């Protein structure tokens, strides 16, 4: 049996080495937790501005007004405010996003919020589908030796196959029998997100040790009772890490699923359209919103984990 991926190792107890998480009770601890990422993030943004200057400079000089000022700061300003830069600056991306969100009506295709909503809809529908299927299959595998022996190796082997590659084919094939719009995208996302959940939940359902299972047996508990009262609660420690992996996959899947339909709606479609027409800002805007969507969903998963943890007195 190969070792499990990192996210599946038993995550319920805080590591002793992890000094940052144990020292967050006072203000100093909070600062020690927030300061390093903030400093590094600031450094990265400064590097970004320098890189934007270096990459855009040749074109900026070529486009500059020959009669205007040509000193160093004029060149810097020009390379930070180009229409089609090689690398746009963060403030350009943000102002472009703000422009598209506030200056266009919500139902206009130029409004990025509408595109994000389309992608989020596909991702969430597919994620729900994948979670239900994955948990059901995991329950089946835990309770049936036949399923365990014959399906589980394929579930693990399927992790080595680039599943995302079949996305265009699924969209085309489902389109041929009349399924367009949300259904094929949700199917792809569901298929992608169901594997990590299955693998994680099989581990989770198997994680009660012999002592606990024996105790249930001395209570004369049925298999259904063992499942609902022992296996299910214990498996929560594995559900959330799997969900985080699944969320990341779901967003990627939803974006890729939008590509073959000919770039109509969604963040993936915006990416492709931006790529076709050389609209740098459109690509970056879509990319930033996709990342924000992923981060928001991960945050929701963390929030759920936090509430469950709190309601169980601090551990899962």
């Amino acid at each position, binding site marked *: 049996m190969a070792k499990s991926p990192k996210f599946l190792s038993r995550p319920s107890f805080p590591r002793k080495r992890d000094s940052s998480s144990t020292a967050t009770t006072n203000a100093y601890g909070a600062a020690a937790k927030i300061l390093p990422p903030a400093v*590094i*993030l600031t450094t990265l943004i400064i590097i970004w501005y320098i890189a934007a200057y270096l990459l855009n400079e040749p074109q900026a000089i070529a486009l500059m007004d020959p009669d205007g000022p040509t000193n160093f700061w004029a060149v810097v300003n020009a390379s930070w405010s180009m229409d089609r830069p090689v690398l746009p600056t963060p403030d350009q991306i943000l102002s472009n996003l703000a422009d598209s969100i506030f200056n266009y009506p919500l139902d206009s295709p130029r409004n990025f919020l509408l595109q994000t909503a389309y992608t989020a809809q596909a991702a969430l529908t597919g994620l729900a589908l994948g979670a239900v299927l994955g948990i059901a299959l995991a329950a089946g595998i835990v309770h049936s030796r036949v399923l365990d022996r014959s399906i589980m190796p394929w579930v693990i082997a399927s*992790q080595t196959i680039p599943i995302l590659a079949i996305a265009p*084919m699924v969209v085309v*094939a489902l389109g041929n029998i009349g399924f367009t719009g949300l259904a094929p995208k949700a199917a792809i996302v569901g298929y992608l997100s169901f594997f990590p959940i299955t693998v994680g939940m099989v581990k989770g359902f198997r994680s009660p040790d012999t002592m606990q299972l024996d105790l249930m047996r001395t209570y004369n508990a049925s298999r259904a009772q063992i499942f609902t009262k022992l296996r299910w609660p214990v498996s929560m420690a594995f559900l959330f890490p799997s969900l985080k992996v699944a969320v*990341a996959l779901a967003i990627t899947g939803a974006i890729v699923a939008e*590509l073959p339909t000919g770039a109509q709606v969604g963040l993936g479609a915006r990416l492709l359209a931006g790529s076709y027409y050389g609209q740098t800002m459109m690509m970056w805007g879509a990319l930033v919103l996709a990342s924000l969507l*992923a981060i928001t969903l991960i945050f929701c998963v963390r929030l759920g984990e936090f509430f469950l943890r709190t309601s169980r007195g601090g551990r899962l």
Partner: protein
Amino acid sequence: MTQARITWLGAFVACLLMVTTRLNISHPFEWVPIALTPLCLLAALVRLAGEKTRASRIASPVLFGFGIIWAWEMLCVGLHVPFILLPPPSAVAVAFVNNLGMLGSDFDQTFLHSVIAGYIIGCGTGFLTALAIDRSPFLQRGLTPLANMFSAMPIVGIAPITIMWFGFDWPSKAAVVALMTVFPMLVNTQAGLQESGIMERDLMRSYGASYWHTLIKLRLPAAMPMIFNALKLNSTLALIGAVVAEFFGTPTRGMGFRISTESARMNLDIVWATIFVAALAGGLSFALIAWGERAVTFWHPSFHKRQT
């Protein structure tokens, strides 16, 4: 003993039935093998699940896989499933053999160029960065949350931007692959370097070992299981990244290009043959890394023989 023989006989008969069934039925008697196959297969699977030998552990999934392919073929042909929805496996096999040259050139473009180059650059950068920030707890604490955040982002979306920067050919795909693989490697190497225990590190200190000695003799070997985890994870990610990056634009070869154009032209047999190549490449590279892992981290508890 006889029980085991019956099981294997059942499995053999199931395979025989699957190979011999034909669907151009002229006589009602020919329905018998078709009806018998699933029964025989199911019985063999149930019996195999009860066996404890190593052979039965391998035979179960293999038999199940054969069963799936058989059912796929039978359903496609028997129910007249349209070719553009799902081609039968036999058609995929024919397409694979007929287009070997084209598939080979796609494999060369996508796997031998984009994936390998990007994988080496990404994993190498992640590993070296982890080593570089290992001595600074400040950088470690700062980079870990950022790296976790990056791993949640849809990095393949950067493909159109790398195309703008590095052109249509494979370097832009390699850049996507490198970006996708660098963070898992960084996070895992960093976690792996913390794996060695305090006792062992104290022992090294009592030997008067330098930082580099401790790193090479103790901490890197202890980190190997985590590093191999990242290598395995990345081998899949790299292939996905390269294929998906080609959906955004590529010269007229490459597995991603093949899949997107041929599915638009309804040649689903070629699409499935390409997916087969991709699966084979993914599976083989994963197996290669797993073999390396077994050779390097043979001491890890997960490779100990299981007590029965």
